[in-house]
C-alpha cells in the first residue's frame, strides 16, 4: 500500500489517519457542522468514511491527512487531496472538527497539502468544492488565493461552488506568505 508521508508546518502535523481519530471524527459527523460535507452521518457511516479516507491513498497515491495541532497534540480534522469517482477534478479539501475551527489551522494544513500536490505530485491546477452556505470554508479558500470558477452538482452532496486555486506558477510568483 502507498505509504502516507508526514508533513509538518509551524502549527500542525499532517499524518496518516488512524483508528484513534475515529471517535472525534464520528462526533463531528454526528453534529450540525457536518451538514456542508455530506453529514450528518451515523457512527457506522463515519467509520466507513474513515476507512475510505485511508483506502483513497491506496487507490490514488494521495489522499487526506489527519491533522494534528502540534501545541495540544489533538486531532483537529482531515485535510488533503481528494479525488473519488465522480469528482470533476482532484481537489484540495479540508474538514475541521468542532473546537479547532477559526484559528487558521485549516489554511495552514491546506497550504501544505497544496504544496505537496504541486511540488511532489506535479499537479498543474487544483480546485476546492465548497457548499454555497459554508462561509467558513470559503474564507479558507479566499485566504489561499482561490477564486470562484463555476458550479458542480454531485449526486450525493448536491450543488457546490468550484473554487480554483492559483496555479503552481502563480503560487511561486506570489510566494506562499502572500496567502497565509
Amino acid at each position: 500500500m502507498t505509504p502516507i508521508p508526514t508533513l509538518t508546518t509551524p502549527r500542525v502535523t499532517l499524518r496518516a489517519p488512524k483508528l484513534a481519530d475515529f471517535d472525534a471524527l464520528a462526533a463531528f459527523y454526528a453534529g450540525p457542522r457536518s451538514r456542508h460535507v455530506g453529514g450528518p452521518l451515523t457512527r457506522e457511516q463515519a467509520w466507513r468514511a474513515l476507512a475510505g479516507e485511508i483506502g483513497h491513498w491506496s487507490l490514488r497515491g494521495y489522499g487526506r491527512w489527519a491533522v494534528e495541532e502540534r501545541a495540544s497534540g489533538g486531532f483537529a480534522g482531515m485535510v488533503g487531496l481528494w479525488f473519488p469517482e465522480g469528482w470533476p477534478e482532484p481537489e484540495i479539501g479540508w474538514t475541521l472538527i468542532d473546537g479547532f475551527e477559526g484559528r487558521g489551522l485549516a489554511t495552514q494544513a491546506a497550504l501544505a497539502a497544496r504544496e505537496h500536490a504541486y511540488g511532489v505530485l506535479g499537479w498543474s491546477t487544483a480546485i476546492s468544492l465548497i457548499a454555497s452556505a459554508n462561509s467558513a470554508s470559503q474564507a479558507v479558500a479566499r485566504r489561499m488565493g482561490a477564486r470562484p470558477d463555476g458550479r458542480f452538482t454531485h449526486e450525493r452532496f448536491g450543488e457546490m461552488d468550484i473554487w480554483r486555486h492559483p496555479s503552481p506558477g502563480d503560487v511561486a510568483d506570489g510566494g506562499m506568505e502572500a496567502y497565509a
Partner: protein
Amino acid sequence: MPRDIPVIETRRLILRGPEPGGYPDFKATFTSYRARFMGGPLNPYESWMLYAAEIGHWKIRGFGMWMIHDRQTDETYGMAGGWKPAMWPEAEIAWVIWPDAAGKGFALEATHAARKYFYRHGGWEGAVSYIDPKNLDSIRLAERLGAVRDPDAQTIDGNDAVYRHPSPARLEGTQLNHGIEMEIGHYADPLFKPKGWAID
C-alpha cells in the same frame, strides 16, 4: 502503509488485497441489482468510496476482504474475507461473487480459505455471517460452510439473520472440513466429465 495484506493461494484461486485494477469489476456488481442484499445498488461515488473503505478496513482492523482472482488468468470473481465496521456486533466472514462467476464453487473455495486463515493466523475463535433472509444463495453457502442460524445472536439492525460458523475446534480435521474440501475438489476436478458433446 506498514501492514501488507497477506496473499492466500488455493487450488484454483489467489486471494489478494483490493487493488486499483480490480475496481471496475467491483463497481459493475455493486452498482447493479446483484448488490441488493449488500446495501446496494450503489451510485458510482458510493461504490468507489466503499472500495476505498475495503482497503482502509485492512489498515484499521488488520484484516479485511480479499479480492478473488483466477490463478491462471488473474481475472477477478468476487471478494471474500473478514468484515467488521463500526456497529457490527461480531467479526463477520463475508463474500460476494460477481454474477458471471456464480455457480462454480469460487465463493466456497475462497471463503473456506479465508476462514481457515483467520482461525490459524488471526487468532479468531469463531465468526458469524450477517445475511439478508431473502439472500438464499448466501444462506446456502453459509450452510455448506457448516454455519448454523443463531437466533439468539445480536443482529446488525434486525433485518439480517445471523449464521454462526463452526469454531476452529469443530472445523480443523473434522468430517465437516473434509466434506467442504471434497465439494471444492469436485468443482476443481469434476469426477464425471463429459468426454464430448453429441453433434446432433
